[in-house]
């Protein structure tokens, strides 16, 4: 049996009928065509599927769409809605070479956003702890940490 759910994604409201076994990741990517959120491991290990739900970063691959009913969700697409101007975290990732293949990037940035929302002046261990649920196979993390430090600095000046 399908369940009627209401999702608020990046400020937009959606009414959807979803089967219980479908994950939020599947619904975002397949039904809403928001493919910025990636699917990696499907087991909560890699963080590529990270979205922000009610201010917390969660794995969309381990969230049932029926349980996201009524929740406020933000995906990477919501950070730069115009597609023109980037969010300062995105800007810093580009500027400081924190992106190689890019597969981990949307999830990294969503976790970085939650971290900076909670703690605008994180030190390096704070940043590494905040990203502990996001794996990157390319960059070796140092440039990601540096980009987030720079983004924090920039955001505190704005």
């Amino acid at each position, binding site marked *: 049996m399908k369940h009627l759910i209401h999702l608020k994604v990046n400020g937009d409201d959606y009414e959807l009928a979803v089967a*219980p076994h479908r994950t939020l990741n599947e619904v975002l990517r397949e039904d809403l065509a928001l493919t910025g959120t990636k699917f990696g491991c*499907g087991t909560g290990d890699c963080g590529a599927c990270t979205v922000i739900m009610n201010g917390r970063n969660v794995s969309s691959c381990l969230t049932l769409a029926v349980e996201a009913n009524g929740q406020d969700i933000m995906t990477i697409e919501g950070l730069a809605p115009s597609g023109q101007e980037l969010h300062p975290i995105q800007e810093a990732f580009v500027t400081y070479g924190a992106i190689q293949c890019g597969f981990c990037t949307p999830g990294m940035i969503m976790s970085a956003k939650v971290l900076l929302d909670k703690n605008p002046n994180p030190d390096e261990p704070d940043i590494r702890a905040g990203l502990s649920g996001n794996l990157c196979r390319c960059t070796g993390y140092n440039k990601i940490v540096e980009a987030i430090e720079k983004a924090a600095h920039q955001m505190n000046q704005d």
Partner: protein
Amino acid sequence: MPLPKFKYLAPKTWEEACAMLAQYKGKVRVMAGGTDLLIKMSLGAAAPEYVIGLKNIPGLDYIKYDQTKGLTLGPLALLADVADHPMIKEKYDAVAHAASVTATVQVRNMGTVAGNICNAAPSADNIPALMALDAEVTLARLGGKRTVKLDDFFQGPGKTVMEPEELLEKITVPAPLPGSGTAYLKISPRSKVDIAAVGVGAHLVMAGDVCQMARIVLGAVAPVPMRARKAESLLTGQQLTTDLINQTAAQAADEARPITDVRTTAEYRKTMVYVLTRRAINACAQKALPPCAK
């Protein structure tokens, strides 16, 4: 791996959830955060026809403290909220610390302490700390309730005394005694976000330099989280000396019954029980000191 199909039940009250559990007994699983259950389902290790989503019941994520009753955690108290809670950090720091070293940021934002207990993995990070603090769980079923000490709750990997028609209603941890210190230490093969290869929870009550009471719980070194009772008895009533602490740690390592698996070898686990028990006792003794002596 896509999830297999199932029917999703959304009770609005606790009583309704108990009734659903009784009605669909054997074909149903309850879900808290789903971080264990959904993975088991996608791997085919669990194939319930029905899933009861506890999140539909409002208010189950509570964290309460009362001087006589101690700490109470609701069935949906999140790992992230337990880890960050100022009162838990102050009065039950091993409990907060154990939650903070469980899994990753995202999993802590979804998973619950109750789910960690019910899942009953020998390596579950929250159990040694809670058991060292003599926590108990209240189990509810349609028309009845009982409380069980964590000491008596686990029967084997994934096995507990909980009946199929029972739900874990709350976790209660007694108020800390004066002079008590608690610690949870964990070693995992890759990083601290990994499943524990060995975990040690300890709770000491000190009067000056004499240990009045000791509880030492070992995780991931037996089919269930286990008390190192002989090690505990070496400490009780004794003055804490370096020699005694070393001897106790060696006794704990002797009591551990580890296996060799993908994470590490049995031999390494025993050695780490020694190391972590020693550190945990020292940490407890340090924390138990009255504030002026620190």
